[in-house]
């Protein structure tokens, strides 16, 4: 076989360039720690990596939604706690009014406290958190409970505010006034009537009021149970989202990161090939018959 000089040089150049290219590629992977540096490096993995990133972003978004819903519901929970304590105090006062209606002065004292309890309940019902009224349904920019002429009315609605906290789960992060305080006039009216009954020593009415407050307590307890259950659910969801975040990060690493051991091995192989090729080339290309003809 004839081996023309130009072929030897061409083959030598081509092989050296090829070895150098794989060495450079391995070197780049080692230097950046990344296997995917541009879409053509592995198109299928690049699509998967981008989808994975989008899912991770959604997951992190869900975590923020969980945090936000948890804050809202925790605020509602503490307001409900306060409200329940107010109801207990009111029931105690009314019971005292029923069992021990001694002097007008002491009944007036009980009635005054009931009045202030009623104001406190109205305040609780208008609880604000992060700049909005949390018991107003969707009308959260204005106070839901307003008193005109001794009658408290509800200006909110019964709308549930939902937020997505995972791929499958949507939770309600608000408690509406109706859910917590029952239909208007409800507890506010009861307390007003109780104050009046105390002043008039109307035991039958007080007994009725006591029953009504008991019913209000039950409604509040139900609402609080739902809030508690949702908070538990959110906490569980948060744990899962955190685990999923790790999974997504691991998958991203698997898709995008270079396998360093493999890349270093590849680099060494390519480096050896370059060196061996150069050494052989230096010997072969340097020799000509002309050297030996005197």
């Amino acid at each position, binding site marked *: *076989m*004839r081996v*023309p*000089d*130009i*072929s030897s040089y*061409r*083959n030598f150049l*081509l092989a050296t360039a090829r070895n150098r290219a794989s060495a450079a590629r391995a070197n780049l992977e080692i230097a950046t720690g990344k296997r*995917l*540096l*541009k*879409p*053509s*490096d*592995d*198109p*299928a993995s*690049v*699509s*998967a*990596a*981008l*989808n994975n*990133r*989008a899912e991770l*972003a*959604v997951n992190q*978004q*869900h975590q*923020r*939604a969980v945090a*936000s*819903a948890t804050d*809202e519901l925790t605020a509602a929970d503490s307001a409900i706690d306060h409200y329940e304590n107010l109801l207990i105090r009111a029931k105690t006062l009314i019971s005292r009014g029923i069992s021990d209606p001694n002097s007008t002065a002491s009944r007036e004292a009980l009635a005054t406290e009931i009045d202030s309890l009623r104001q406190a309940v109205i305040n609780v019902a208008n609880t604000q958190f*992060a*700049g*909005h*009224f949390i018991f*107003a*349904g*969707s*009308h*959260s*920019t204005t106070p839901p409970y307003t008193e005109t002429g001794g009658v408290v009315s509800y200006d*909110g*609605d019964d*709308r549930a*505010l*939902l*937020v*997505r906290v995972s*791929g499958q789960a*949507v939770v309600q*992060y608000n408690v509406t006034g109706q859910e917590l305080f029952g239909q208007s006039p409800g507890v506010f009216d009861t307390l007003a009537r109780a104050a009046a009954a105390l002043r008039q020593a109307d035991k039958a009415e007080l007994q009725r009021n006591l029953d009504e407050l008991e019913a209000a307590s039950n409604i509040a307890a139900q609402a609080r149970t739902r809030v508690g259950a949702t908070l538990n659910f959110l906490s569980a969801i948060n744990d899962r989202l955190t685990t999923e975040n790790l999974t997504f990060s691991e998958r991203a690493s698997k898709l*995008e990161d270079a396998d360093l051991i493999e890349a270093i091995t590849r680099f060494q192989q390519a480096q050896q090939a370059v060196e061996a090729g150069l050494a052989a080339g230096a010997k072969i290309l340097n020799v*000509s*018959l*002309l050297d030996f*003809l005197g």
Partner: protein
Amino acid sequence: MGSIFDSFEIGRRALLASQFGLQITGRNIANVNTPGYSRQSPELVPVPPEGYFKLGIGGGVSIAGIHTFRDKFLETRLTTEASQTGLFQAQRDALRQVEQVFNDLSTTGLSDTLSQFFGAFSELASNPTSLPLRTNVVQSGQNLATAFRTTYSQLQNIERGLDAQIPPIVQQMNDLASEIARLNGDISIARGAGRDASALIDQRQQAINQLAELVPVQLTETEGDQLTVSIGTGQALVLSNRAIPLATSFGADGKTHIFIGQTDLTSAIDGGRLGGLLSVRDQHIPSLLSDLDNLASSVITEVNRLHSNGQDLTGAAGGNFFAPTNAGSSAAATLSVDAAVAADPRKIAAATAGAGAGDNTNAHALADLARTALTAGSRTGTPAEIYSQLVGSVGSLVATVEAANKTQDAIVAQLNNQRDQVSGVSLDEEAISLLQYQRAFQAAARFINVASQLTQTVLELAQ
């Protein structure tokens, strides 16, 4: 039997033949690195005996001509492969730029801004009356619009850059065509004068290969080693010693078109560097642009549909979130947040119609668009999925072209090696030839010396 003086003639011819051989060897050595050079060797023949002498030994050696080692089949293959090489290289160079536009892995691109946009709605759903969160939605919408517009205009810039490469290439083609025509003429003259045209043919082959790298050529050999070069759908570029010039001009589509006479060749060129540029300019980039438009357009439609069903913070019915695309305009290139919403974030319709200002139903629905399968042209999936499909398809395209380039390099190297097996110069071989002709020259000189001594002897007889 010839006369004793015939020996001098034999010796003279032998010296000439060896010298000729040495010159050709020298020429081969001189051209060891000349691309496209075909090695040569002298064609020597013995001189037949003259006259009627039965035992005639002839007049020694004579030079019949020069043999050029050339394989026409391989040359043709190399010409064809040059077009393929040009095509793949041009595509690779252009598509690598395109790929950079979609390199969302290393830079913040459309895929991140899409996530952030829908994420902003999700955040708003958690606190729909918050003005900072509303401003964040507007900002993310603007970022998304900017990302679409930037991606689109980057692609357009690449397209324009490719377009600008066309006139210089056409100029180069014209230069090469003129050179081929000139060489056709020179070859014809050399042939007519009975001179060796090998060097001219090598040069012409080089020019043809350079031309073929730019555009696929069809070659027809006519009488007297003349080559007719045609391109496109058979339009002659070189006819014997005449080149027909190509011209470029802007078409109605704002792109450079290539003309030969009145014929528009643009769509007929499907190979070579020129074909590579044209395919990326006219097929790959427009298809990506329309993919982007389809994605932008379906995002605009879906977001606006939901948004205009809702109700804003002031209780008014929602309008468009994104400014609707004007008829005839590109959705991606003109994407922007509706001016009214951008000016007043309270106009974001987070609530469903009829609900209070603090309702989040619509924001929730808009956030859920991130997980809703949309249709954008021929692709379906969530917006992020559609985009990642797009990136994947760009990646595969580039990977395919890169692989084609590697294969092509190997094919061309192999063909060149095959060609050089026939036509290339081996210095070892030439060293032997050198020695061979040198020794032959020395022997011929010696022969003349002997003949001279013989003559001397004969002359001495007469004394």
